[in-house]
């Protein structure tokens, strides 16, 4: 056991094989999530946040190749773990998933209840380790467990405020609105009693008033169930709402990790500062970040942000900055100073 850390990602390097060469989408990313904490993973399209989330879930595309680094979950090495054990005990069970698009995640032709029970048949926490089967079709669903699972599922639906769960079980996905479907997804992610939920842009497809309701739900349930959440989002406002800690990624590198209040009050990495400045705010000029996100097949050397950074020096081009700070970590040779605070580097 490693104390209070649930997930530790250590110098993870991952590349996608493409026609033009290897796109290194994760370039030595390190981050960790404590038990019961909500970690926001923010960054722009193509920064690698979804790939990172998928690597933890073990659902990478076929052309992805983990080159080095490690992922430890509850003290165990996930990458080296026996695949069958990972399938059975971790994926979709102790690590569950809330998708971005609640419209596409259900099969529109089957009743919601059937789809929930199909999940519980395989991933229920009550499934005995010795329970085995003869392939997907021949495996029985023990009656006692099925009953217990169903009751548990109905309780979860009630918890996410689905009106009349018993009736909801018999409805088709199309009979629910987008917000309701996302509530169903959250309920399903909780049913397997996970330790970690990976939520990939869970509110992007929703309207702002529904978003507020869903974020409230995720925050509340995370706390009552003691679950850790890894939430990827491109929206800093969403991250501010519910996260305890925030990690910023840029072009496959994590550049800054900080507790939420510190993150927004005292950002140190130039990219973070520019990102916050590019948010529209009343009474302030709009600032864009000059330049464009680099190609990951031929990325810039050293700190990948250096071609767009006005503070860049020779050392930034030569090598990637090491991690500075402990609670508030950033990777920059020349961090933006915090007003009225002289920090000793180290």
């Amino acid at each position: 056991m490693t104390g209070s850390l649930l997930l530790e990602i250590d110098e993870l390097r991952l590349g996608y094989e493409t026609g033009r060469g290897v796109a290194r989408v994760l370039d030595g990313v390190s981050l960790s999530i404590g038990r019961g904490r909500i970690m926001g993973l923010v960054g722009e399209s193509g920064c690698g946040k979804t790939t990172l989330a998928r690597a933890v879930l073990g659902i990478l595309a076929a052309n992805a190749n983990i080159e080095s680094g490690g992922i430890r979950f509850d003290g165990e090495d996930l990458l080296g773990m026996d695949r069958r054990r990972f399938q059975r005990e971790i994926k979709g069970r102790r690590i569950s998933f809330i998708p971005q698009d609640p419209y596409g995640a259900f099969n529109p032709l089957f009743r919601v209840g059937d789809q929930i029970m199909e999940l519980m048949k395989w991933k229920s926490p009550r499934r005995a380790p010795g329970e085995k089967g003869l392939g997907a079709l021949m495996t029985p669903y023990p009656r006692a467990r099925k009953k217990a699972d169903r009751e548990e599922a109905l309780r979860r639906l009630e918890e996410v405020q689905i009106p009349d769960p018993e009736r909801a079980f018999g409805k088709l996905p199309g009979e629910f609105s987008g917000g309701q479907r996302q509530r169903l997804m959250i309920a399903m992610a909780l049913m397997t009693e996970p330790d970690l939920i990976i939520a990939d842009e869970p509110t992007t497809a929703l309207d702002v008033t529904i978003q507020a309701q869903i974020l409230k739900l995720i925050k509340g349930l995370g706390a009552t169930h003691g679950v850790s959440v890894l939430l990827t989002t491109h929206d800093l406002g969403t991250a501010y709402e519910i996260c305890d800690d925030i990690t910023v990624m840029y072009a496959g590198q994590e550049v800054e990790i900080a507790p939420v209040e510190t993150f927004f009050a005292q950002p140190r990495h130039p990219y973070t500062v520019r990102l916050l400045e590019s948010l529209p705010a009343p009474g302030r000029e709009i600032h864009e970040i000059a330049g464009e996100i680099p190609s990951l097949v031929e990325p810039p050397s050293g700190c990948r942000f250096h071609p767009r950074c006005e503070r860049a020096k020779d050392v930034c081009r030569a090598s990637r900055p090491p991690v500075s700070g402990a609670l508030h970590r950033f990777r920059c040779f020349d961090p933006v100073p915090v007003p009225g605070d002289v920090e000793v580097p180290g």
Partner: protein
Amino acid sequence: MTRAAPLLAVRQLRRHFPVRNAFGMLTGAIRALDDVTLDVRPGETLGIVGESGCGKSTLGKTLAGIHEPDAGQIVFEGEDISQLRGGARGSVTQRLQYIHQDSGNALDPRWKIGRSLDEPLAIHTNLTRAERGERVREILAAVGLPRGHLDLYPHEISGGQQRRVGLARILTLQPRLVILDEPTSGLDVSVQAMVLKLLRDLQERFELTYLFISHDLSVVRVMCDRVGVMYLGRFVELAATEDLFARPRHPYARSLLSAIPQIGGRRVTDTFALEGEPPNAAQLPSGCRFRPRCPLAAAVCEVREPELEPVGEGHSAACHFADGAGESR
């Protein structure tokens, strides 16, 4: 300037979409636009906000002539264009342009940028080839792209640059009113900042008037002079941006504004109170449309639908209690 004749005057505009059952029989209508009245003043940016299904995109598309209105008037530059069809409508299109959500994606992948930019001019104007080339180069410079891009294909430039080309394509016709339908949705914040800045520059340079349709209230707040809030096919509140954000009168507008996350401020997840979701637009409640979700709903709301009425200088709201009852909420 604020009292100048409106560039675009919309009166009682109605657009209903029929709802049919499995046998093709008419069973009802989705009232996407229900007697909408609106003035757009020359040179301003008028924001239209609301959630999915509130009718904001239908409004934009009906004004642009993509949908035909069922009833009502659209007076553009003093001329009623709601009944124009075919070629007559085409000549208005030059001055009243509509930009799709993803204007970069609307480019033909097999055409070079130069050809895409030339096409609208070839269709709508009588300019010679040399004059068209001149105009295209001028616009390309205005949106901040190098001349060499004329010979590239859309896939060879970045998404942000594609948006610039999409904008340039509209501007070659020198429109007066541009309807921007969700111009920043799906963009990263840094690219969004670029697009917003460009839109502002172009507005100043070409004296454009914008109808800015968006669901993103923080973007609307920095871009618009006035804002209209729509709910289920109607305006519930219309006011100067500052007034609306400082003192929203309609309970729906209040909820909507309180749902925006504000970094550094109070957290919406701690304070947000609105329950439920918008009802089916095909089965509207009696009286006020917001009544089933409204914290102030009273007997009168069930009986009579409130009209959009002035509640202050340049500020109107459609609520029986907009005058300050429930102000403490």
